[in-house]
């Protein structure tokens, strides 16, 4: 018989009782048990003895100097703890690390910003110098007052001086920057390039086109999801007109059972584009927006130069026709040349006007979508109408079936009858021959 069957409590529980770790009810029960159980009392006594023996392990008192040291240190660090309450880190290493990090950041800022500042300053000085060149060249007597003047460095300046605007700088060699290769091509005098053409035209006394800064064709596309579709779609045109623009085209889709939408191509003055896009964004939630800027300065200069050349040619041909006499064939040839040149001029004029318009008016593609909410369709519950439709449809199907059958009979009936006769009649005779005559009874 083991111990657990004899005793209601395990030795561990006796130990817990002595340590005061038993619940009150259990403790009372165990105390009662101990009064009657000698074996359990022995265990309890042994456990008490062990604890008493352990108390023999006494140690010397704490040295007094320990208190002085710690209290002295504690006085210093209590202040540190109170600083921690305010989230401050008084550790010297951290302070040093923060100071070092701040110094590095400051150094980086200085290292980046100072060279940029110096470059901007140099560019501004160079721009001023270019303007001074322009003034001096304008004041000087240049043969034929041509727009192209050559500076002491052999660079073409006049006629393109407007390129020397803020944001477009020139370096110390007189080359312009800010318009990319385009500006370099114009001013740098690259043989065969645009500048080459211009110089050739200038040599003929043709006025160079005047460009006011880079010519940019701006396009934007915006897709808007509107909660209040009716109000938003109604505002597109007024907003466009308010900005001095117009609606180039507009199409609306309002199919039943689907979200309504409006697609519109709007044209607004280039200066108004940003504000106009801001107006559009207020119409609803912007789902997609893209912007594209295409520079056409080079093409415009080229086109203008060709146009002026053509006009000059036209003028010469006209003069030639008015002053010279010759064969009729020569006159006719000159007339044809004049007609061709005028056709080219008109075409180029149109292109130039189109280009200028493209630059002046930005294109905005707007797609306005309704935030679709499914709606009950009362028509779907009109039973009478559905029955009528079904009846009409059924009659239509019947008529179509009869017509189709008649067509089939008329189309294939003769052929079927012919082949039945060709195949069926001999087959009938063969069948009768092989079947034999029935026996007479």
């Amino acid at each position, binding site marked *: 018989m083991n111990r657990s069957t004899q005793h209601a409590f395990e*030795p*561990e529980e006796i*130990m*817990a009782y002595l*340590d005061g*770790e038993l619940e009150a009810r259990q403790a009372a029960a165990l105390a009662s048990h101990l009064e009657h159980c000698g074996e359990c009392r022995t265990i309890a006594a*042994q*456990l008490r*003895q*062990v*604890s008493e*023996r*352990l*108390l*023999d*392990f*006494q*140690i*010397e*008192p*704490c*040295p007094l100097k*320990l*208190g002085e*040291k*710690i*209290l002295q*240190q*504690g*006085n210093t*660090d*209590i*202040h*540190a*703890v*109170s600083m*921690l*309450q305010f989230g401050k880190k008084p550790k010297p290493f951290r302070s040093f690390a923060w100071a070092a990090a701040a110094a590095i950041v400051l150094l980086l800022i200085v290292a980046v910003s100072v060279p940029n500042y110096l470059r901007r300053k140099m560019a501004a000085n160079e721009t001023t110098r270019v303007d001074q060149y322009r003034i001096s060249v304008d004041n000087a007597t240049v043969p034929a007052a041509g727009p192209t003047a050559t500076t002491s460095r052999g660079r073409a300046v006049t006629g393109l001086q407007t390129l020397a605007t803020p944001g477009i700088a020139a370096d110390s060699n007189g080359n312009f920057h800010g318009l990319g290769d385009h500006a370099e091509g114009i001013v740098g005098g690259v043989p065969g390039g645009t500048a080459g053409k211009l110089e050739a035209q200038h040599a003929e006394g043709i006025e160079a086109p005047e460009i006011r800064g880079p010519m940019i064709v701006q396009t934007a596309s915006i897709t808007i999801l509107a909660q209040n579709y009716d109000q938003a779609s109604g505002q597109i045109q007024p907003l466009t007109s308010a900005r001095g623009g117009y609606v180039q085209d507009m199409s609306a889709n309002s199919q039943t059972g689907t979200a309504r939408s409006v697609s519109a191509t709007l044209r607004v003055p280039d200066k108004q584009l940003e504000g106009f896009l801001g107006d559009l964004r207020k119409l609803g939630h912007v789902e997609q927006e893209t912007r594209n800027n295409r520079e056409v300065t080079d093409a415009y200069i080229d086109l203008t130069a060709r146009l002026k050349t053509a006009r000059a040619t036209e003028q010469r041909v006209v003069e030639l026709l008015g002053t010279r006499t010759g064969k009729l064939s020569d006159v006719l040839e000159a007339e044809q040349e004049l007609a061709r040149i005028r056709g080219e001029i008109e075409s180029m004029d149109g292109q130039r006007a189109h280009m200028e318009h493209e630059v002046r008016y930005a294109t905005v593609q707007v797609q306005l979508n309704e935030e679709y909410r499914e709606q009950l369709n009362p028509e779907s519950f009109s039973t009478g109408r559905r029955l009528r439709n079904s009846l009409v449809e059924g009659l239509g199907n019947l008529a179509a079936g009869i017509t189709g059958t008649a067509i089939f009979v008329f189309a294939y009936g003769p052929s079927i009858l012919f082949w039945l006769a060709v195949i069926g009649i001999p087959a009938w005779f063969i069948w009768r021959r092989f079947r034999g005559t029935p026996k007479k009874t």
Partner: protein
Amino acid sequence: MNSDEQLILEFQKGSRDAFREIFERYREPLYGFFRRRLENPARAEELTQECFLALIRNAARYEPRASFRSYLYGIAVNLASAEWRKSGREVEQTEHHDCAAREGNPDAALWVRCALENLEKTDREILMLREYEQLSYSEIAGILRLPVNTVRSRLFRARMALKEKLMPVQGDAHRKIEEPR
């Protein structure tokens, strides 16, 4: 009289008197904690000091969820464990020799120390936290990250082992003391 928890909260707010009170309350118990676990009194003194310094530095982290006593002895146990890790191999090599050398020593404290050193490490720690630091089973379980039932069973095992070691020794020691008479 303020409780330990109230004192540490006041200390968090910067009260020096609160710290002084805590220090006075726990100076002897903490020194005893380390002294019983280390043979070198100077080292025990240093660790007691380190324990109070750790308390000062980490006072802001104390939350009144646990009892302050558990919190403080948790720091002490960690410091003692670190100390054992540093000199663990050396202690393991010497402890049995020490016990052997003490067998003829009638000093009861040395006998108890010797008996304790022969216990399994965790059992010994549980027993000492219970007997000398008077921590409850749940507090010991929290400090040593053990289940309460494990603490109870290990404590019982340690006490039974000590009973075997100390009782006969006690008799022998008494005999040895009584022999000259």
